[in-house]
């Protein structure tokens, strides 16, 4: 079982690394924030799986703090840092 949890955590880490591409590329600032949001949700899952793999229930508290604070960065972006006009340069 321990092996299995670890393998899934690794798989999630890989999807997270793939999500880094969206932060790099954008194109809009909001897209980058979305990718950061993906980082925090996936990290919650990775930490919970690692907690189960190492049988250390204290790690669940870290996931709890992550989940609690997931929204703060995105809200700071929406309320403060989002430019009022943004070039619509999505070229899909």
């Amino acid at each position, binding site marked *: *079982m321990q092996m*299995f*949890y670890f393998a*899934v955590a690794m*798989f*999630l880490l890989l*999807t*997270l690394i*793939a*999500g880094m*591409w*969206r932060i790099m590329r954008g194109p*809009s600032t*909001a*897209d980058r*924030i*979305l*990718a950061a*949001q*993906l980082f925090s*949700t*996936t990290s*919650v*899952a990775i930490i*919970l*799986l690692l907690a*189960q793999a190492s049988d250390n*229930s204290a790690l*669940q*508290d870290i*996931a*709890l703090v992550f*989940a*609690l604070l*997931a*929204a703060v960065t*995105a*809200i700071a972006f*929406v309320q403060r840092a*989002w430019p*009022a*006009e*943004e070039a*619509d340069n*999505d070229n*899909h």
Partner: protein
Amino acid sequence: MTIIDYLSIILIIIGAFFFLAGTLGLLRFPDIYTRLHALTKADNLGLGITIIGLMLQLESIMAVGKLLLIWLLVLLSGASVAHLIAKGAVQRKIRPWK
């Protein structure tokens, strides 16, 4: 391995699949609205299913409640952030993909 173990393995694999779907959506979908939808729906569901899979392995009620709280918090903030970003994008007249 008991039946419970198999059940949680299946659930966690389904959860990981939803995470993969969410990431693929974030990478492949053409505009911010569709990406928002991929991310907040697929990832929150994936986390939920993973958490149910993990809950089956826990002994104490306290820990089960903690995992449930984690999921609820992620759902709450995910939904609110999705709304705020979509609304902001509409206000900034970012065109939806056609």
